[in-house]
């Protein structure tokens, strides 16, 4: 990102629907609810929205990829919301951080004035989320699916196995990630695991394997639900009902640490971080890539009070995907914005001046820093 874009745009409205493991509602119904609530939260009406960005891809192996069934495209949403005068409409790939990045660019170039960015997920009630019907595969999957490994957690289990071998990490250390998620989820009214209470080490260590050495609690739970944000330029944001969350900077996976420089901050200025935890070991991977700790140290770094609310670098304060449910990073984006806006309620980190969010897999990821103060 060019530093001239620093704090030029902001999130001014945020919403999220309740999350349900299985829902009788359609993905369109939850998406429209999230959209209307985000627009209202920004103090706007539908007529103000002239930009839309979505991230429609359904991530499960059994996904139908059908518009209005398990995905909502930009075209679907523009039609469903009657956004007749939208001047900028697009979809990005499945990672929610990319929506924020695309919206910054659209707003900075004057392509539109108010962007609605929305991610909706649908957990099919009639089939297994990660089930493949065949081992016939094209593209990169032709080298994995014939060996019984789908696009889900297997490769992160392999990453974990090697990490444990290289760095002496234990599953007790990985429990810290899942345990932290469940602890923080208790302060998030929308979290699927909110009422389940804390996860004990004993329960974790005795849980059934999914992709050994990852167990049931190392994967997030597929859900049906949607979340949305409304973004605009810094100038327009001053009239918003809530304090804006300015976008200080962004960077992609090729050089994730660039996010500090373009945002005009150092690592130490990050007061709170939402790190993608669709699978628990990913948190270790990204903490090291950002340099919050050295290579091979994350399993010791991400433990205890340091990464909890009140600590020096609170992580996944909303419970992460492991505690909240699989919104594929949109929960992370929402929480990062809420922290910078000072609206995270019982989860609010004091002086959350710079709030970082990373969403994505190693080779495809976006990181965004929100700032409470446009400088």
């Amino acid at each position: 990102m060019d530093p001239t874009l620093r704090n030029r745009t902001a999130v001014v409205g945020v919403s999220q629907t309740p999350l349900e493991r299985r829902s009788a509602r359609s993905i369109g119904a939850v998406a429209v609810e999230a959209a209307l609530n985000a627009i209202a939260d920004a103090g706007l009406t539908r007529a103000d929205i002239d930009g839309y960005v979505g991230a429609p891809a359904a991530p499960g192996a059994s996904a139908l990829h059908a518009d209005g069934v398990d995905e909502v495209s930009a075209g679907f949403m523009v039609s469903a919301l009657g956004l007749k005068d939208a001047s900028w409409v697009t979809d990005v790939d499945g990672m929610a951080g990319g929506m924020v990045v695309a919206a910054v660019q659209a707003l900075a170039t004057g392509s539109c004035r108010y962007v609605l960015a929305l991610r909706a997920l649908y957990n099919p009630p009639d089939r297994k989320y990660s089930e493949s019907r065949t081992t016939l595969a094209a593209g990169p999957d032709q080298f994995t699916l014939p060996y019984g490994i789908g696009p889900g957690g297997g490769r992160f289990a392999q990453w974990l196995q090697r990490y444990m071998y290289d760095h002496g990490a234990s599953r007790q250390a990985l429990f810290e990630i899942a345990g932290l998620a469940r602890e923080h989820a208790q302060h998030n009214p929308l979290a699927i695991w909110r009422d389940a209470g804390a996860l004990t080490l004993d329960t974790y260590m005795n849980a059934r394997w999914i992709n050994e050495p990852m167990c049931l609690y190392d994967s997030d739970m597929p859900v049906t639900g949607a979340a949305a944000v409304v973004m605009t330029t810094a100038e327009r944001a001053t009239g918003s009902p809530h304090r804006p969350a300015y976008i200080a900077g962004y960077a992609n996976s090729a050089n994730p640490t660039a996010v500090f420089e373009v945002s005009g901050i150092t690592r130490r200025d990050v007061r709170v971080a939402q790190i993608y935890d669709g699978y628990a070991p990913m948190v270790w991977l990204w903490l090291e890539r950002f340099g919050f700790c050295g290579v091979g140290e994350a399993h010791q770094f991400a433990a205890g009070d340091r990464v909890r609310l009140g600590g020096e670098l609170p992580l996944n304060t909303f419970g992460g995907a492991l505690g909240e449910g699989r919104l594929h990073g949109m929960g992370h984006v929402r929480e990062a914005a809420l922290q910078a806006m000072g609206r995270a309620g019982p989860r609010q980190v004091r002086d959350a001046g710079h709030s970082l969010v990373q969403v994505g897999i190693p080779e495809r990821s976006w990181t965004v820093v929100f700032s409470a103060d446009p400088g």
Partner: protein
Amino acid sequence: MPDSDTAPYWTAAAQRILSLPQCRACGMILFPPKARCPDCLHEHLEWTVLSGRGTLYSYCVMHMRLIPGFEPPYVVGVVELAEQAGLRITTNLLHCAVETVRIGMPLEVVFEERGEGITAPQFQPVGTGQAPGA
């Protein structure tokens, strides 16, 4: 399903040969097969026959029944091929009990008929008695 970049890999496998494209300019062996060397961008690639030897880089044990033909628990490994550091491909471990799997164990290629004309390169521990490549 092979595409025009990957078809020679599967064709060679059907003949019980492990083969990958190698850049004629810088010597890099490419996996997955690509149309051009991503390192030096040279376009002249040559399919090279590999020794089929390697070591186990990592693995996981799959415990869910999600993919047809795979009965859990089963191992999905990543083998690092002897020819090049970091050259890693996905494999099951044949003739190898789950509890004997170790990172770093020496492996050799074998070929598994999958029906419909598809032969999948697979790996087994060196010295399991099964003839290499058979």
